[in-house]
Each structure stands twice: as structure tokens, then as C-alpha cells.
């Protein structure tokens, strides 16, 4: 069984500059894969190589087992691509644009799907408007409608929510989840890490053109972040001593520990009088922390030190 999208040793050079450097990963069928990285990391260049907007310097891209260079028509017809920048379409209306795009993917009569997408993306009343007459959010939704007119098996979303308000962002992500449920495989890039954490089954982190880490979102968070345990205490307390302790104030202590440890093991060194514990708050690590740790691998070890550094 072929993977929906396989990227094999893909590199893209601009002269001596390596925009994408020997990147390999594959998408599993029906998953949402988040490609994360800071600005200029190579996310857009990578996606541009997949859709042949950029010619890759070396490597291979396969769609359901077929190379995009050997079978361009067959592979491109399975991909829906939403570019980062909004495209204008001059004289044409929203509905005309979707008809053209359906035809470009080989479907000449596609009114039912076009009507569905216009309704689903709240563009129905704007179907006779030109792109320049639409608001920023409407333009984004049109870009997504364009990419979906031919029911692609793979959807590539390059920062689809850049500059979009929270309400619309949420509705677009809901739609992406709906697409996933219907079997579409999604590759997306975004700078909203909280949303990526909630949405993506797996994450790839790219930095300076190379892929630093790929894994299940929950595994990355578990492996690369620390859980935080905060306890509110009553009365005057002794000075606690534990390798997991990161701060102690008069009436509270905070501990940080790896996800694979049980809480009992973490607190046993404290020699705590449990009758003084007023409240306990457990905070899980976030994708943002894991992401920052991957980007700053050298500094990562510092986060496990047990020095008391937090202000009370």
C-alpha cells in the first residue's frame, strides 16, 4: 500500500544557499501532518517543490507511489494546494474561478460540488463578486474552495490562516477536521502552535532547511517537555529539597519532571506533610515548548536543572 505523499531526500538550493536540505518524510493516509518551523525555515519552498512550482535540486516526491515528475498529470490531480499568498483573478467572479479550476482538474460539469463548497465556506452570496471585492477572510476561503473542487486525496495548506481572525481560523480548522474524517490526507503549515497541537496527528519541525524532528504530536510533547506540578501549601514550610523542585515560595512549590515519571516518585523525596497541601495543579507540556526545545537543542538541557529560579 503506497503512502499518499512521500518526500525522499528532497533538496532545493539557490546558488550556495540550501533552502531545503535532504528532507525525507511521508504522510500516512487520512492524517493531518503539521510542518512547523520559523519564518524562512523552508516550509513554503518544500511545498512549492511538491507541487512543482519550484524545481527541486535533488530528491524525489511520490504521490501514492508515482513520481510527480514521471506522472505529473496523475499525481497533480490528486493534490489540492492552497498557497500562502492570496491569488487575484482579474475579471473573473468567484463562481467562474471555481468552474475554471474544476475544468483544470478535468471536471467540466461540477456545479453540485461548487455549490456545496460555496455554501460550506459561506461564500454563496459572494459567488458573483470578483476577488478584489472580497474581504481578506473571504479570499482565504476562496483559495481553499479552489483547492477542493476536484475532491483531492491530499490537501496542502501553506499557512491558510495567516492574518485570519480567530473565529474564521476555528471554522477553517473545523473544516479541515471534517475533510480528514472523509479520508483526505492533510499537510499544513502554521505559526499557531496551540492550534497545530490540537489538530495535527503528527508534526515535523523544519529549521534552516533541514527536518529536525518528526513524530506523533503527543509523543513529541511527552519526550521533549516537562510536566509541571504546583502545590499550594498552608502555614510556614520548611525548605524542601528535590531534584525536581524549580521554585519555592512561602506558600507554594513548583516541580518539573519528565512525563515518564509517576507523581508519587516525584514527590516522595519532598518528605511533605500532606495535611498542609491546599491545592494541586498539574500542567502538561505544550507543543510550543517542544518546538522551542527542538529549535534550541543546545539550551534544552538547561530546562531540567533544579535550581530555584522562579520569582515568588
Amino acid at each position, binding site marked *: 500500500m503506497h503512502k499518499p505523499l512521500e518526500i525522499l531526500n528532497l533538496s532545493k538550493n539557490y546558488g550556495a544557499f540550501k533552502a531545503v536540505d535532504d528532507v525525507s518524510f511521508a504522510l500516512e493516509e487520512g492524517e493531518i501532518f503539521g510542518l512547523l518551523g520559523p519564518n524562512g525555515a523552508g516550509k513554503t519552498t518544500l511545498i512549492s517543490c511538491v*507541487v*512543482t*512550482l519550484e524545481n527541486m535540486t535533488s530528491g524525489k516526491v511520490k504521490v501514492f507511489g508515482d513520481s510527480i515528475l514521471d506522472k*505529473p*498529470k*496523475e499525481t*497533480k*490531480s490528486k*493534490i489540492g*494546494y492552497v*498557497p500562502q*499568498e*492570496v*491569488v*487575484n*483573478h*482579474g*475579471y*473573473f467572479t468567484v463562481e*467562474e474561478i471555481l468552474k*475554471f*479550476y*474544476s*475544468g*483544470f*482538474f*478535468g*471536471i*467540466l*460539469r*461540477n456545479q*453540485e*460540488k461548487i455549490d456545496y463548497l460555496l455554501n460550506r465556506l459561506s461564500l454563496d452570496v459572494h459567488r458573483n463578486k470578483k476577488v478584489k471585492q472580497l474581504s481578506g477572510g473571504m479570499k482565504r476561503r476562496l483559495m481553499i474552495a479552489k483547492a477542493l473542487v*476536484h475532491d483531492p486525496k491530499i490537501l496542502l495548506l501553506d499557512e491558510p490562516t495567516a492574518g485570519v481572525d480567530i473565529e474564521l481560523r476555528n471554522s477553517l480548522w473545523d473544516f479541515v477536521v471534517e475533510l480528514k474524517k472523509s479520508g483526505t490526507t492533510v499537510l499544513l503549515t502554521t505559526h499557531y502552535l496551540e492550534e497545530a497541537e490540537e489538530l495535527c496527528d503528527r508534526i515535523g519541525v523544519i529549521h534552516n532547511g533541514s527536518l529536525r524532528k518528526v513524530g506523533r504530536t503527543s509523543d513529541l510533547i511527552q519526550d521533549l517537555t516537562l510536566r509541571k506540578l504546583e502545590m499550594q501549601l498552608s502555614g510556614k514550610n520548611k525548605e524542601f529539597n528535590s531534584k525536581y523542585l524549580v521554585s519555592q515560595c512561602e506558600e507554594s512549590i513548583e516541580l518539573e519532571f519528565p512525563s515518564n515519571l509517576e507523581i508519587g516518585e516525584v514527590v516522595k523525596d519532598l518528605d511533605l506533610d500532606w495535611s498542609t497541601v491546599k491545592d494541586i495543579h498539574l500542567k502538561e507540556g505544550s507543543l510550543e515548548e517542544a518546538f522551542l526545545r527542538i529549535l534550541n537543542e543546545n539550551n534544552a538541557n538547561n530546562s531540567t536543572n533544579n535550581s530555584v529560579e522562579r520569582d515568588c
Partner: protein
Amino acid sequence: MKTQNIYFNPFLMLLWKEIRRYCKVLVQTVVTPGINSSLYLIIFGVSLGGSIDVGLEVPYLAFLISGLIMMSCLNNSFANTSSSIISGKFSGDLEDLKVVPLSKQQIIWAMCLGGITRGLVVASVALTVGQIFYYSQYGEFMEIKSPFSLAFFLLGGALAYAKLGMFVAFLAKTFDQMSAVSAFVLQPLAFLGGVFFSLNNLSPFWQKISLFNPVFYLINGVRHSILGVSDVPPLSAAVVTVLSLVIFHVLVLVTLSRSEFKRW
């Protein structure tokens, strides 16, 4: 029933889009060239024409009409493909052509066929306007000696110029570069290509220079088809037409392979 054909339908849709694009602005793309042709006919054909002898035993008005038909056809075929690509580079929708299942050959032929249709529509307008002027001067319509030959030269010239338009537009990095090619290369070639004068009106030096102008052959091919007389034999005109087609096709294919479809 929804059917998907990724091999031929994308080509059909791009052709349809190219035609729809110029139909959206018919005043700019068809009416304006028609008015321009009328002005040339009034100024040169009707007003000055009586005092010009081109030495080909045909009235100057008939000589001018045949030249104007081809000039309109070439200019508009060129304008359609080039403006489609340039506006696509500006707005970003040229990228769409690269990410959909269209081959390079399909892109070339669909865009060029779109350009040809506009060239032929405007040529028909020029012919109609010309016939009206001819009828008003001579009381009869101008006879077309060889309709098949006319179709060959109009189609061949339009296709060659549509390809040239694609080639120049894909190469252009700015609007300025595009208009520089039009102003410094194409317009001089067209105006010096025998639309308004015959070789007989030129000194031997300029006669020799004119023979190096490919547009001169394309225009004389049409002139011979309509009037039965021209400055160069129709066979030479046909050879130049075919050569132009081959050369421009290779150029545009190479350019398309190397150019970026990315927006400016």
C-alpha cells in the same frame, strides 16, 4: 454524472478561459482595434489614398485593407497571449497553471488558440470595416481571390504571433520590459512591414532592408490571398510563415521549461 478526464479537459478549460478573458473586455480587445482600423482607412485610404500609387495595379484602399487585416490579426494574437501571462504574473494566477494537470504543450496550444481566436475576430472586424469603406468608394465589395490561402496566412501568422507573445511575456521581468519589446521591436516591424506602402514606393536600399523583415512576408501573404498581387511571391511568404511557427514554438517551449510561473 460527474466525470473526470485529466488528459484533455484541462486543455479545453484553459482555452475557454483564454477566450472568456478577452470577451470580458470586448471594448478594449475588439471594438478599439476596429476603430483604429477605421481611422487608418479614413486617413490613409479615403483621404490620401487617391494620390498614392503602389504600382501593383490595385486601388490603394484595397492595398491598405489587406495590410490592416493582417496587422490587426498579428497585434491582437500577440496581445492576447502576452497580456494573459503578464496579468497572471502580476495577480499570481499564472501559478495555477503549474499546479494543475496541464502539460507544457497543452499550455502553449490552449493559450495560442485563444490568441488566434482574438486575432481572427479582430481581423474579421477589420475586413468588415474595410469592405464598408471599399463599398462606399467603389460601389461594390472587394473580392477575395483565394479564401483558402487567406485562411492559411491568417491562421499561420496569428499562431506565430501568439507564440511570440507567450515567449516575450514569459521572459519579461517587468511591465517595462514587455512594453519595450512592443514599442521598439514589434511596432516598427509591423509599420515597416508593408501595411501602408509597397516595395515600389521605396528606394533600393530600403527595399533590401524590408526583405529582412519577416512581418513583410506575413502581410504580403494575406495581400496576395485577397488581391492576387503582392511584393513577394506567396511561396516565400508561406515559407517564412512556417519557419516563424517552428522557431517561435521551440523558443516558447524552451522558455516555458526554464521560466518560473511565480508572481512578480
